[in-house]
């Protein structure tokens, strides 16, 4: 029976007209992007196969913003780096964001950095001593990228390696402070017993904590490539840089030059630097992580093509970060964009399209005629529209009915199909030929409901989204996890996958996840969100219009209700005769 069903499947493949993409493609798409965990050594293997497919393209132009809040100093230095990579026209405020995935370097982390790597969202993972391997990764990836992003990558590259160097410097400085006296004038040093040892231990542990904290906070795969510098991060880098430089200055003058003998003092000096670095780390946590948590704004994202909209609450974010946030949520909240569903049914439209013929009677001069004509046409057309809404309504009702009928057939077919399959129990003794793995089971079942499924998908215009391969995979998944037919074809979590247009992210990644979004904004994108800010995220066929509104200030007042005050009486309406 299985063989016969398999044969039926093969036979059905032909007339169904469903696409069957090569397996390789399907498999390549499975390890998706967007895994947020910071990886260690395994990072060295780039996912080359997915470079082009997933949201991992970094590109874009970067423009100078006149109003950016970043510090002047750092921007000047960036200018020098950036001048060679300038591309496109100035003054146009549209920048390109390319969404996440590959650990490409960002262009924001310039020089100046904290003890370790300081970039949160747009950083590559740096493992220990592997700066070079990361650069290697990126260089190889850069060659695959679009041409105009090559310049940017170089400068980002430069920025990140500078930042990494500074981080390393900051990390090693306290150790250097403590080691140099030992190396240079060991004989003259005063012996320093227990207090020094205590200080050594504390330095060791604090450095360890710093390392762990930085790893937790900054070693993250970048979510997105931001077109502009991230202000806070730059600020922090500058801070660390200044800190380290001033410590070295004092060290050089007071200790190295004068060959200070008090070793305990030197060690304490080093400890104070480590403390200062820890505090800067705390500042980083607050600025980069905590400040944006408390919701301050409500963002409304509306898709221009079909009007679906969603609301999100965010905290204090810059426009570009808010854009990335919106995009992250877009992929799991918005139903997939289906251009086929947007148009009015042809029968309705065709009536509208038919033109008017205007005949002029009598002798009127031509100028009057033309304006009169056009006005008459418009007026007649306006009046005429009254009828087409009727047709639209009936067409919609008919379509609805058709969809429901097909859906009912599909559900029944699925239920029936599932009755053919049963999980093999241990105690059953079955012929080995009859035992199937999930894939075969899926194929066996698929034949019986293929027709109903296909008709349903055609009616709801979803057939481009579901290839046969993906359907089979989903069936396999359901069978493996013992999901009931309801889940499979009906009302459960996986069911609506077919019955309604599901969120974009569940579909095959190659086709539906965007490679590029363009951020269009009237204000510079590093500005923070304010009440009434509107920006647009564009793709080729539609755009997301996002508007921000401040969450209003709530005045909560208190009213005390004494539990004893809850007393009631009957409503009386008596009538007495006197």
């Amino acid at each position, binding site marked *: 029976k299985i063989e016969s069903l398999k044969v039926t499947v093969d036979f059905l493949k032909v007339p169904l007209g469903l696409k069957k993409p090569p397996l390789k493609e399907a498999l390549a798409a499975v390890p998706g992007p967007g895994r947020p965990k910071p990886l260690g050594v395994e990072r060295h293997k780039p996912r080359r196969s997915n470079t082009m497919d997933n949201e991992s393209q970094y590109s874009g132009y970067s423009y100078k913003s006149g109003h950016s809040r970043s510090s002047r100093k750092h921007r000047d230095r960036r200018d020098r780096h950036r001048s060679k990579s300038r591309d496109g026209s100035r003054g146009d405020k549209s920048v390109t964001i390319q969404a996440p995935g590959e650990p490409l370097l960002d262009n924001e982390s310039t020089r100046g950095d904290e003890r370790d790597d300081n970039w949160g969202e747009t950083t590559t993972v740096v493992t220990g001593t592997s700066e070079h391997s990361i650069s290697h990764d990126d260089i190889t990836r850069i060659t695959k990228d679009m041409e105009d992003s090559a310049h940017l990558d170089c400068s980002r590259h430069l920025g990140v390696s500078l930042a990494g160097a500074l981080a390393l410097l900051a990390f090693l400085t306290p150790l250097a402070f403590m080691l140099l006296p030992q190396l240079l004038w060991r004989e003259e040093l005063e012996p320093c017993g227990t207090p020094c040892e205590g200080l050594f231990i504390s330095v060791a542990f604090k450095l360890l904590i710093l390392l762990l904290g930085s790893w937790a906070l900054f070693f993250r795969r970048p979510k997105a490539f931001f077109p502009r510098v991230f202000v806070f991060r730059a600020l922090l880098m500058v801070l660390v840089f200044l800190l380290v430089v001033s410590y070295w200055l004092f060290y050089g003058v007071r200790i190295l030059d004068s060959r200070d003998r008090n070793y305990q003092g030197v060690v304490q000096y080093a400890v104070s630097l480590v403390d200062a670095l820890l505090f800067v780390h705390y500042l980083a946590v607050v600025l980069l992580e905590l400040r944006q948590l408390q919701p301050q704004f409500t963002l409304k994202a509306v898709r221009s093509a079909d009007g679906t909209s969603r609301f999100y609450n965010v905290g204090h974010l810059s426009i570009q970060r808010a854009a990335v946030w919106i995009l992250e949520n877009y992929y799991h909240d918005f139903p997939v964009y289906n251009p086929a569903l947007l148009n009015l049914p042809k029968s309705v439209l065709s009536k509208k399209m038919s033109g008017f013929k205007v005949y002029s009677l009598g002798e009127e001069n031509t100028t009057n005629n033309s304006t009169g004509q056009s006005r008459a046409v418009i007026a007649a057309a306006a009046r005429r529209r009254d009828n087409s809404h009727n047709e639209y309504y009936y067409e919609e009702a008919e379509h609805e009915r058709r969809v429901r009928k097909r859906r009912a057939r599909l559900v029944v077919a699925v239920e029936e199909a599932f009755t053919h399959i049963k999980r093999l129990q241990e105690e059953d003794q079955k012929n080995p030929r009859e035992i199937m793995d999930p894939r075969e089971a899926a194929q066996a079942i698929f034949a019986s409901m293929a027709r109903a499924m296909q008709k349903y998908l055609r009616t709801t215009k979803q057939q481009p989204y579901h290839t046969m391969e993906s359907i089979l995979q989903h069936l396999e998944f359901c069978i493996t996890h013992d999901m009931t037919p309801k889940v499979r074809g009906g009302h459960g979590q996986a069911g609506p996958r077919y019955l309604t247009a599901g969120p974009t992210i569940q579909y095959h990644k190659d086709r539906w996840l965007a490679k590029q979004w363009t951020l269009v904004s009237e204000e510079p994108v590093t500005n923070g969100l304010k009440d009434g800010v509107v920006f647009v995220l564009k793709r080729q066929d539609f755009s997301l219009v996002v508007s921000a509104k401040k969450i209003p200030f709530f005045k909560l007042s208190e009213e005390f209700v004494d539990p004893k005050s809850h007393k009631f009486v009957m*409503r*009386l*309406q*008596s*009538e*007495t*005769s*006197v």
Partner: protein
Amino acid sequence: QYSVILTFLSFQQRIEIHKLRQGDNLILGFSIGGGIDQDPTQNPFSEDKTDKGIYVTRVTEGGPAEVAGLQIGDKIMQVNGWDMTMVTHDQARKRLTKRNEEVVRLLVTRQSLQKAVQQSMMS
């Protein structure tokens, strides 16, 4: 201001009812509804549904009240000088049915009266 007061007074009417003796009781021949302990929203006769005054809900035919000119829907403002606008239902009943009184003088107000006066004022 004088004219306002005068117009207010003219909305009211004085009615004198002589009680009828029936066996051991003295009856007036009408029924009352309302009171500050009652639900004013269910009063069909009041214009203002928060009015908790005493209203005449029924007038028995041929009784002393009808003879004296009391009509259904009248609001009783005073009984023998006692105010009836802020009394409970039971207090109102008691003031009307005092055993030692044979005559009760009511001060009533009536919507039809008000309307008549307003119309005459306007014309």
